């Protein structure tokens, strides 16, 4: 994370000019393009030439539902599963699709209907499950994609694929790419923030991995900063006990004084950067506590998010925090909610998870809208894959579970250049295959970058002799869902 990138670069340039070095444009070009300085933060606004065109969205809030929420019980209604209850999944539908190690030994794949009802929402009439009544109520503000598909069938590779464009670890995450390409909008906060919530009554669910917000081969300053719900919101944010703000100020002043002597001695421009980073750290120590202090939020706003909002670490709390981060122009806000992995007892556990997120997700969209922030904030809601139309174990009307399914699943998006009140793409009657307007994960990533004014084929970084990008060599902007 680098602040003042541009300021530093220009002051360096001024310095060189003012000191009458008379260096040529060419040498200046070298200074301005050297990696050493890029690491010190030369490109304030990200890469030169970015954004590539006028962006619709300035920032992104990704409400990631980790574990694989069942599209068949939430966003993609399939009456056929009910009429053909407990019949075998036809081979003509499965088409040899491989299945996970968990059901590979199961004698049959029996069709499993949802026990939850669906109703139309808003003027657009998109049919959404009774488990998500608040989201259904904002159907006219969102765009549901029912034709997403991914390549992985297990959690780690699938989440890594969603967040980095590759199933294998080692690539930068979306937020790191956007920080690298576009730079920062805020001087006092990190530009890529990660919030992790826990279910009120559910379990902890699948683990998360810090690499999901890592910077891969990009400089590590682009990695996401995890805000924590207990202890310091940012690691090591608090001054040690017994060290007041004033004492810290005194100490930093002495430090800067000695560092400036050293700068004159060594001639190293890095020291200037270091001094400014210590100053930004000092400012963060004020800006972050202010950010997480909800005491001035009126009840009318708190009510939008539901009663969990006051409890740190809940999804509702993090949604309000996400809005406050968006207001402060943090570029990429990544929420994770866990425990959507319902191999069994989906009937019992899915309602708990839906209750965790329904009101707060809708509340966030409404709150952004009423502040005029929704127009330039892209909101994405969804998980790494969907779930199978066949039961894991026996098919039962009331009590059942579903396995992972990557061939087709649903997400929704809102704001930031996305066409509201639409449903895009469709699956077959089993919810197993996409039959209309398929959207691959790379397409979703290309579209996300497009909303931010980035041509996904042009945001590249050379590593190991090759230009890498978020969408690898794939991806297509889904123009039909753009406003």
């Amino acid at each position: 994370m680098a602040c003042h990138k541009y300021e530093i670069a220009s002051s360096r340039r001024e310095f060189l000019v003012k000191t009458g070095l008379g260096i040529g444009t060419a040498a200046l070009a070298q200074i301005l393009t050297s990696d050493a300085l890029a690491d010190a933060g030369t490109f304030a606004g990200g890469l030169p030439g970015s954004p590539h065109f006028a962006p619709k969205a300035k920032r992104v809030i990704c409400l990631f539902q980790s574990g694989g929420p069942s599209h068949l019980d939430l966003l993609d209604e399939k009456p056929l599963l009910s009429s053909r209850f407990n019949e075998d999944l036809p081979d003509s539908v499965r088409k040899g699709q491989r299945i996970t190690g968990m059901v590979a030994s199961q004698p049959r794949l029996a069709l499993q209907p949802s026990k939850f009802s669906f109703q139309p929402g808003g003027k657009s009439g998109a049919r959404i499950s009774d488990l998500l009544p608040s989201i259904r109520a904002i159907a006219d503000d969102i765009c549901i994609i029912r034709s997403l598909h991914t390549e992985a069938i297990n959690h780690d590779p699938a989440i890594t694929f969603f967040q980095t464009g590759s199933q294998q670890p080692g690539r930068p995450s979306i937020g790191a790419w956007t920080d690298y390409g576009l730079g920062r909008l805020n001087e006092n906060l990190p530009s890529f923030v990660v919030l992790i919530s826990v279910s009120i009554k559910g379990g902890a669910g699948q683990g998360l991995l810090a690499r999901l917000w890592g910077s891969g081969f990009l400089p590590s300053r682009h990695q996401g900063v995890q805000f924590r719900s207990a202890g310091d919101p940012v690691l090591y944010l608090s001054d040690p006990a017994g060290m007041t703000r004033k004492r810290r100020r005194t100490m930093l002043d002495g430090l800067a004084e000695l560092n400036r002597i050293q700068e004159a001695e060594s001639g190293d421009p890095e020291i200037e950067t270091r001094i400014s980073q210590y100053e930004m750290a000092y400012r963060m120590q004020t800006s972050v506590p202010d950010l997480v202090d909800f005491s001035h939020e009126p009840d009318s706003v708190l009510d939008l998010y539901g009663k969990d909002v006051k409890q740190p670490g809940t999804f509702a709390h993090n949604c309000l925090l996400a809005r406050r981060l968006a207001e402060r122009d943090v570029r990429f806000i990544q929420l994770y909610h866990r425990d959507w992995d319902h191999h069994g007892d989906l009937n019992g556990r899915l309602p708990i998870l839906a209750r965790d997120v329904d009101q707060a997700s809708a509340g966030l969209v409404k709150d952004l809208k009423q502040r005029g922030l929704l127009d330039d904030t892209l909101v994405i809601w969804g998980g790494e894959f969907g779930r199978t139309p066949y039961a894991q174990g026996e098919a039962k009307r009331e009590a059942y579970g579903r396995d992972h399914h990557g061939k087709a699943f649903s997400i929704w998006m809102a704001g930031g250049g996305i066409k509201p009140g639409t449903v895009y793409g469709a699956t077959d009657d089993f919810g197993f295959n996409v039959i209309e307007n398929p959207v691959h994960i790379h397409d979703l990533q290309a579209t996300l970058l497009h909303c931010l004014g980035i041509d996904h084929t042009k945001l590249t970084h050379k590593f190991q002799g090759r230009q890498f990008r978020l969408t690898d060599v794939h991806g297509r902007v889904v123009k039909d869902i753009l406003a």
Partner: protein
Amino acid sequence: MRLPVIEKSVQCSGQIADQVLRTSIALFIVSASCVAGSPPTALDFNRDIRPILSENCFYCHGQDANKRQADLRLDLRDAAIEAEAIIPKDPASSELIKRINTSDPKEQMPPPRSNRHLSTEQKRILEQWIAQGANYEAHWAFVTPKRPIEPAVKHLGWTRNPIDRFVLAKLETEGLSPSVEADRPTLIKRLSIDLVGLPPSPQEVDTFVNDSDPNAYETLVDRLLASPHYGERMALDWLDTARYADSNGFQQDGDTWQWIWRDWVVRALNSDLPFDQFTIWQLAGDLLPDATTDQKVASGFNRNHLLNGEGGAIAEEQRFVNLFDRIDTTATTWLGLTMACAQCHDHKYDPITQRDYYSLLDAFNKVPESGTPQFFSSRIRVAAPFLELPTEEYKTRVAELDLQIAALSPDAKLSADSAFEGWRAGIFADGKPSEGKGLPDPVLTVLRKLDADRSDEEKKSLEAGLRKQFDEKVRPGLVAKLQSIAKHEELKKKLADYRGDQLPRVMIMSDAKERETSILSRGEYLNPIAKVTFATPAFLPPLASDAPKNRLGLAQWLVAPEHPLTSRVQVNRMWQHFFGMGIVKTAEDFGVQSEYPVHGELLDWLAVEFRDHGWSMKAIQRLIVTSATYRQTSRMSLKLRSRDLENRLFARSSRFRMPSLILRDWSLASSSLINPKIGGAPVYPYQPDAIWEALAITKERDFTYPASSDQDLYRRSLYTFWRRTVGPANMFDASNRQTCRVRTSITSTPLHALTTLNDPTWVEAARMLAQQGIKSSPDLNAQLIDVFRRVLTRKPTEIDLAVLRRAYAKQLAIYQADPAGAKLFLGFGASQRDASISLSEHAALSAVCLAILNLDEALTRE
């Protein structure tokens, strides 16, 4: 000199600022070596032409047949000429030149939609090249290095060894002079950081500074090279390369025993195991005749990858993920090449085919492994093959348990036997045994017969059936009632649990499983298309005819004298260690897309020296650190700052922030907190609360951070437990230890500042440092000098001292007025505070020490 700015200009497009930039870059190239302002030199294919062709043309007109357009190759001279793309000495008729100059978007090359763009200057260079005859040369890094002649220099007196000749010759051509030698306190600080990663004591500094022996510097170098901490310092980079961590890196993130391999690395480096052996052991130690334990352990290099044991994981798919990782890691580490591209298709730039990739993969495909780890305890998950290496402690404990179990066995057996007899008697006494006893039908059938009616066969099966029923169904119920059995069972379980959790099992390589290898269509493990057997890539020197066709052959081939890459790649990494950047900046890539080295001859000289003198890493390192080049000051004059900011010409020493792992060691050592113990199981020093739980899957195991106590808190960072899913919070800018990394970026962020200002590690170190200072003298000046020297080696100047005294006075006033605050501030860490020291003085000096530990100079290797 070609400057590494061209690649950037290709990415940037569209904006005015960028146009300015590009123009200036063009200007740059016009004057060829404009940094130095010397006259332009003749075109050199590798330096001037290949980078342009590779970046802009080879993607579609290179060696990948699947992507090739218009059946045209520009990577081969004959093919390009035959297609009339190039007509030597006739640029105007050459199709290549016509296409790059046309304004017709349908004809234009590179095509406008390719996001590739040739500058006017690049076009001019290509024309000039064709006019001169369109000479091609093999990529420099793929040709065996020959020892270059040491160049003539004007100021021979400055040079100390051949390295300096190459450096000085270039400087003289560029019209630059080397910098003066750094002062001795700086030199000892620099050497200590680079060679052992621990600060010298003020006495050691004094000894060196006052040593009038002309070999004082060399004596110091030799002492540090012989230090047992040398291996710890040098291991850090190698652990990044080997993607070493202490856990598997997926959902359950089971702990492993790979630290046994890590300890081997430290020992091997300390004993200066020659790099060819270092290579062979790690790639194929298990295949050496009569392989020793160390050789087998060394082969764990290629078992340090991630392991996915997720419930739904398909083992065979994961096995291939691991295989691909081994290829990528091995190729990056020794060849300095990225092979991953060739997993799915022929490499776009380097002459590596998909067949090459899978022919090499065959060497790693014989491991008797499933692809997923096994459960040994809720904590430990490792995958076969592994080596069981019981420690003395383990053996003792197991022997104890065995004894206890043996002691209880007769009693337990007696109890169990008599219980069985009683139960059996009950069955027979019950004239009409009912189903209520839960006996299986076949047993009941026989039991219902009269004894006389039972055949011998039936009698036998009846007894066996009863015994089975008793052992399986009845006996477990008795455990609670019969104490001798209960105790016996409990001990047996205890032994099994102990074995699972505590028997060290280090994962190693083995070729025990015959498997056929196939080329996989698009790299998908379910789509084999053609069988292959082991072979090395065709564009590199061939495998010796008598070499084994397996991993051992591969390892031997890598260190064969004619191999063009291994020696260059390794000396480049060694150079990177001491200068912050390799001679080839792209340490991970020596392929045709890599940067053309400014100091290619120096690199080759070092590579040949390394190869021909027994592959001794210490010898090359000694050569580097005893050079006049290394001994220069790192001070950046305004001239150098404008001419060579990145220090590619080595007109000074480099200046860069220490790795965060060394920063922690430095603060622990300068405050005398450090525990210098070498090797052993990882430890768990201070980390923020709940650092693991928030992310972990907690239902399968307890993820509470098992914080260490006492001396384990102060072990070197190398020994901090590295959980792959959540790395240590206070080790920033580090490799992620998930994939092979041979170059890490050094950045500067506010989060780093927060860490070194607020992490209890540093706060405690500041307190202990202050305590050392206070105990060294009653005089404030002497105290300040003492603590300053412990961290920075040099003595503070009068100005430094004045600033420190002022800072101290301010802090003292604050803490005198706030004793409670002083007490709190001095309360960090487990180490004992000397209660005889005044609270306010101790707190004030601690605050000053914390500032000293955060000085740029304290964080930086100068």
